[in-house]
């Protein structure tokens, strides 16, 4: 959703996504600060490591809620199509990159970037999807 959402569900999506991203930044800061200053050990290492991932999973739930709540079938269709581009693009690039890592000594990239690629492809595809219906 690149511009101001046209529907109530779209606005709720934006209002939910913004605090989710703020919580992500907070949890990321907490995790980084803790690993840097407190040098945790044991179970707490796993808890702190997973902490920033929780709001990111939450952001996917926010997308799911939007799909469930959006009564405008055209807007819902555009978002679902853009999600398919997001999933497809992220999987395609990460698959290609993993083979480049295996066979062409490409530098290792964190699996976290699959999530980033999903959103990039999703955002880029939306205007093109909308253009098809004009």
């Amino acid at each position: 959703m690149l511009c101001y959402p046209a529907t109530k569900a779209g606005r709720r999506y934006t209002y939910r996504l913004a605090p989710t991203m703020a919580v992500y930044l907070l949890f990321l800061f907490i995790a980084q600060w803790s690993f840097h200053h407190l040098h945790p050990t044991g179970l707490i290492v796993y808890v702190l490591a997973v902490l920033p991932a929780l709001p990111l999973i939450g952001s996917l739930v926010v997308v799911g809620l939007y799909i469930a709540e959006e009564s405008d079938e055209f807007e819902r269709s555009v978002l679902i199509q853009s999600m398919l581009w997001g999933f497809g693009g992220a999987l395609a690039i990460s698959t290609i990159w993993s083979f480049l890592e295996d066979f062409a000594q490409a530098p290792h990239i964190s699996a976290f970037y699959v999530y980033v690629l999903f959103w990039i492809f999703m955002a880029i595809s939306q205007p093109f999807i909308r253009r098809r219906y004009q």
Partner: protein
Amino acid sequence: MKNRLRILRAERDWSQADLADRLEVSRQSVNAIETGKFDPSLPLAFKLARLFNSPIESIFTDETE
């Protein structure tokens, strides 16, 4: 799917935004349906029929016929 939405709208002097408000959808949705590039679901088609007080088959044309 071809339709007479533009004509029906013009008869009532409604803009796409006016129709979108009445249907509780976005203006882009109305545009996509009007250009025949997005087929509405049955509930939305019935809503349009009620709004224009016309049967569905007089608003939409099945191009396969």
